[in-house]
C-alpha cells in the first residue's frame, strides 16, 4: 500500500492551484464557476486524504522545520474546510466581482478569484506545520501576498481600494517587525528552530533580554495577524472594504494561522513572567476594545470585524492560560459561526445591502436565512447548545484553573456586551418589518453548506468529543 506523508498534502494543494490557473489561462470559453467546483472537489479529496496519513517518520532534513503533530494535522484540515466554504461563498459573490472588474469577457477575473484562495490555503497549511522561524516567515508571506490581491480584488470599488492599500501597508510593516524580531532571536541563540531556541534559552549563560526583545517584535507581527489591540487598527476598514468572502477568509483563516503560530512560538518564552504579563494586558485590551467598539455599529461587516477582534480577546485568554486545546476548540467554533454569518451576509447583501437595517424583516423574506443567522449570532454570543458556548466555557474553565481572575471578570462583562450587539441583528430580522417583500434566492449549494454549518454548530455544542479526539 502506498503511504502518504503530511507534506504531500500541501504539494497537492499547490498543484491543484497551479492547474486551475493554467486551465483559467488557456480555456477562455468555459464557465469559470466550473473552476470553483473543481477546486472544491480537489480540496475535499485532499481533506479526505488527510485522514489516511502515514504516521510521522523521519528526522533531519525537512523535519527540522516541519512537523506533522496532531495540532498541525488538525489545522491543515481546518484550513481546507475554511477554503472550501469560502469558495462556496465566492460563487454566490461572483455577480459582484463581475460588476467591479474590467475585462473583455463577462467572466473576466473570476478565474483568479477562485484560484487565489487555494494558494492561501497552502500557506495556511504550511504554517500549521512550521516549527522553524524561517518556515513560519515564508508561509506567512505566502498567505499575506495572496491576501494582498484578494482584498483589493473588486478594484473599481473605492472602498475596496482603500482597504487594499491599508492592508498592504500595515501588513508589510508587520512583516518587517517579524523579520526584525527573528533576527534578534537568531542573533542571541544562533538558531531558528523553535525547539533548539527553547533549549538555548534554558541555558543560563545566554542573555535573555535581547531574545525577549526579539520575541516582543514577533508578538507585534502576530498581534497584527490575529487582530489584537493595539494592532487592530486596520481591521474594521479592511473587513468592510474587502469582498465579503475574502473578509470571511481573512477573519477565519488568517486568524487561526496567527494563533497556531502564537501557540508554537510562545512555548519557549512563556517561562518569562514579563511575557505572560504583556499577553494578559493585550488580552484585556482586546476584549474591552472589540466588544465596546462593536456596540454602536450599524454595518454588519464592520460589526463582524469588531466581533472578530473581540473573539481574538477570548482566544488570547486561552493562550495566556496555556490551554492549546481550548484555543483549538474555540477556533473551530469560531470558524463555523463566522463563516455561517458571512455566508448569509453574502446572499442577503446581493439583494439589499450589508447594513444591519438591510436585514429588516428577513424572517419574512427568507425564514431559512434568518434562522441560519439566528444560530450564528446565538453561537457568537455564547448561548448554550451551540459550539460558541462550549468554546467560551472551555476558555473560562482554563482561565479559572490558572487563576486569571481579571481576565475572567472582564470576559464575563464583555460577554454581556456581546449579547447586545449580536442580538441587534436578530432584532432586525425578527422584530422589524420588511421594506420589500421579495423572497431572497438561495442557491442549492449554499443551502447545503449553511445547513451543514448549522448542524455542526449544534452538534459540536452538545457533543464536543470528535474535536477533542482529533486534537489528541
Amino acid at each position, binding site marked *: 500500500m502506498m503511504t502518504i506523508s503530511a507534506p504531500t498534502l500541501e504539494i497537492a494543494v499547490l498543484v491543484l492551484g497551479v492547474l486551475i490557473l493554467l486551465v483559467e489561462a488557456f480555456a477562455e470559453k468555459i464557465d469559470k464557476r466550473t473552476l470553483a467546483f473543481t477546486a472544491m472537489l480537489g480540496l475535499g479529496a485532499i481533506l479526505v486524504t488527510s485522514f489516511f496519513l502515514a504516521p510521522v517518520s523521519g528526522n533531519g532534513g525537512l523535519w527540522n522545520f516541519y512537523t506533522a503533530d496532531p495540532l498541525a494535522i488538525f489545522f491543515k484540515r481546518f484550513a481546507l474546510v475554511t477554503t472550501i466554504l469560502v469558495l462556496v461563498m465566492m460563487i454566490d459573490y461572483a455577480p459582484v466581482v463581475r460588476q467591479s472588474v474590467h475585462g473583455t469577457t463577462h467572466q473576466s477575473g473570476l478565474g483568479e478569484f477562485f484560484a487565489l484562495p487555494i494558494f492561501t490555503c497552502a500557506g495556511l497549511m504550511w504554517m500549521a506545520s512550521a516549527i522553524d522561524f524561517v518556515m513560519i516567515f515564508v508561509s506567512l508571506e505566502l498567505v499575506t501576498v495572496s491576501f494582498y490581491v484578494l482584498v483589493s480584488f473588486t478594484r473599481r470599488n473605492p472602498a475596496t481600494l482603500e482597504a487594499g492599500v491599508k492592508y498592504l501597508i500595515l501588513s508589510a510593516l508587520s512583516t518587517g517587525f517579524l523579520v526584525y524580531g527573528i533576527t534578534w532571536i537568531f542573533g542571541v541563540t544562533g538558531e531558528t528552530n523553535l525547539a533548539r531556541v527553547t533549549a538555548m534559552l534554558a541555558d543560563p549563560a545566554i542573555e535573555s533580554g535581547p531574545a525577549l526583545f526579539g520575541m516582543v517584535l514577533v508578538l507585534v507581527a502576530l498581534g497584527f495577524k490575529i487582530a489584537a489591540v493595539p494592532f487592530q487598527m486596520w481591521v474594521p476598514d479592511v473587513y468592510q472594504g474587502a469582498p465579503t468572502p475574502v473578509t470571511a477568509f481573512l477573519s477565519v483563516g488568517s486568524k487561526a494561522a496567527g494563533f497556531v503560530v502564537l501557540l508554537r512560538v510562545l512555548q519557549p518564552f512563556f517561562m518569562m513572567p514579563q511575557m505572560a504579563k504583556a499577553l494578559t494586558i493585550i488580552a484585556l485590551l482586546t476584549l474591552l476594545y472589540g466588544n465596546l467598539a462593536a456596540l454602536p455599529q450599524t454595518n454588519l461587516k464592520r460589526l463582524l470585524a469588531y466581533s472578530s477582534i473581540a473573539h481574538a480577546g477570548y482566544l488570547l485568554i486561552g493562550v495566556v492560560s496555556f490551554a492549546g486545546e481550548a484555543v483549538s476548540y474555540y477556533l473551530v467554533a469560531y470558524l463555523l459561526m463566522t463563516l455561517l454569518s458571512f455566508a448569509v451576509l453574502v446572499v442577503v447583501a446581493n439583494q439589499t445591502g450589508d447594513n444591519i437595517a438591510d436585514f429588516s424583516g428577513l*424572517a419574512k423574506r427568507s425564514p431559512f436565512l434568518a*434562522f441560519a443567522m*439566528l444560530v450564528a449570532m*446565538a453561537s457568537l*454570543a*455564547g*448561548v*448554550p*447548545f451551540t459550539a460558541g*458556548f462550549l468554546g467560551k*466555557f472551555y476558555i*473560562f*474553565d482554563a482561565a*479559572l*484553573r490558572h487563576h486569571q481572575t481579571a481576565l*475572567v471578570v472582564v470576559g*464575563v*462583562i464583555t*460577554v*454581556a456586551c456581546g*449579547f*447586545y450587539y449580536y*442580538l441587534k441583528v*436578530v*432584532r432586525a430580522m*425578527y*422584530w422589524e418589518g420588511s421594506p420589500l417583500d421579495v423572497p431572497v434566492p438561495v442557491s442549492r449549494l449554499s443551502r447545503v453548506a449553511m445547513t451543514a454549518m448549522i448542524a455542526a454548530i449544534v452538534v459540536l455544542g*452538545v*457533543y*464536543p*468529543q470528535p474535536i*477533542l479526539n482529533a486534537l489528541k
Partner: protein
Amino acid sequence: MILPFIVFCPIVAALAILCGAPARRTALWAAGFTLAATLLTYFEFDAGRRGFDFVVSYPISEAWRLNFTLGIDGLSLIMLLLTAIVTFAAIWFTGPIATHEHAFHACLLLIAGGALGAFASLDLFFFYAFHELALIPTFLLIGIWGSGNRHAAAWKITIYLATGSFILLLGLIMLYRSVPEAARSFDIRALQKAAALGMIPADAQSSIFLVLLIGFGILVSLFPFHTWAPEAYASAPAPAAMLHAGVLKKFGLYGLLRVALPLLPQGAQQWTTLLLVLLLGNIIYIGLVTIAQKRLDWMLGYSSVMHMGYIFLGIASGTLLGTNGAAVLIFAHGISIALLFGLAGEIRQRTGTLLLSDLGGLGKIMPRAGFVFGLAAFASIGLPGFANFAGEVMVLFGAFRNGAEPYRFHIFQVATVLALWGVVISAVYMLRAYRQVFMGTMPERWSGVTDLRRSLHVPIGLLIAVTLWFGFFPQSFVRIVSPTFRTYFAPK
C-alpha cells in the same frame, strides 16, 4: 425513560411547529402529554426513597467527565409538576396570534423545555445549559409580541439574564474546580458525596457561594438586581409572563436549594447576613414600590419580585421547616402569579389598557374574571387555605426559630418580624388593585367588554384546584420534598 420524554416532548414539538405543524394544536397536545407524563411520575414517585429516581445517563465527554444525566428527587419532581401545569395553562391561555403564530408557540415550548430540562438535569453543565435555552425565545417573545415599551424591556431582560447566567457559569466552574482532581465531576450526586466528605475547603466555599448567590440572584430578581423583572413582565405577552414569572424565574431559587445550600453549607452561613439584608430589600422596599404602581401589569411584576423575598428567607433560614416552606412557596407563587398574569392579559386584550385609573367596575360585566382574580389575589396575599399561606407560615416560623432564645431577638427574629409586614403590604396593593379594576363605577366605554371565554375554565380550574389542594393538604407536598432537605440538615 419517562424523564427524557418529559424534557424533549416540548422541544421536539417546538421543532415540529417550526417545520410547519399546526401551531396551537401541536403545542397544546405537547403540553398535555408533558403534564400527563409528569402526573404519572408524581404518582409513581416513591416519597420514602433517598437520592434520585428515574435516572438515565448518556456519556458526552470523557475528558470533562461530562454526562447527560436526568434524574429527580422530591424537589425536582415538584418543580417539574409546576412547570408542566403552568405551561399547559399558559398555552391554553394563548389566544389567536396575529403574526408568526408558529414562532410564538415554538418559543413558548422552548422556554418550557428549557425549564423542564434544567429541573430534571443531574449534571451541572446541562442544568445550566437548559436554562439558557430559554434566553433567546424570551427575547423574541417580548420583542415581537410584547406591548408597551417592549423593545427596551426585551433588551434589558436579555442583557441582565445573560450577565447573570455567565456569572453563574463562573460559579459553577469554580465549584467544579474546587473539588480535588480525582473526585472532580459535573454530576450533582458526585459533588454531594465530595461535599459530604468535606472535600470543598471553607475559604473556597465562601467565594463560590457569593458568586452563585449573585448569579442566581440576578436570575430570581434578588434586590438590587431586580429592575429587569417588572418591565419585562409588563411588556411580555401574557403566556410568556406566566411562564417566565411562574416557572423560569424559579430556576435561580431551585439552583440555590439544589446546588448552593447542600454543597456549600459553610459558605451559605457566611453570607447569611448579606442575604437577609437583600431579601428585606425585596420584601419591604419593593413592597412599597409595588404599592406606588399605577398600572396593573407593573404592579404584578413588582409583586412577583417582592414575593421572592419570602422564598429567600426560607432558603436563608437554615431550618428544615423554613426550607420546606421555601419549596412550597416556590410552587404556590408560581401558580398564583401565572393565574394573575393570565387574567391581566385577558383584561388587556379587551380594554387595551391596564392603567388602574382607567379601569373600574369590570366586576359587573366580567363576574367570572372578577371572581377568579379575587381568588388569585387572595392566594397571592397568602390567605389561609391557599398553598401560599402554608408556605409563608412555614417560612416565617422556620426563620424565627433559627437561633431563637427566650426573650431575646437575634438577627433572624428581627428579619422575620420585618418580613411579616410584607404580608400587610401585599394585602394593601392586591386589594387596592382589585378594587380599582373590578369595583366602583364602570366607565361607559367598557360596557361592550365580554367575560372570560368558557374554555378558559379548564386552565383556571386546574391552577386554582392545585393551589387549594396544597393549601389544605400541605403535608402531601412536604412529604415529597422534605426527604431531600432532611439530608441537608442531617447532624454531622
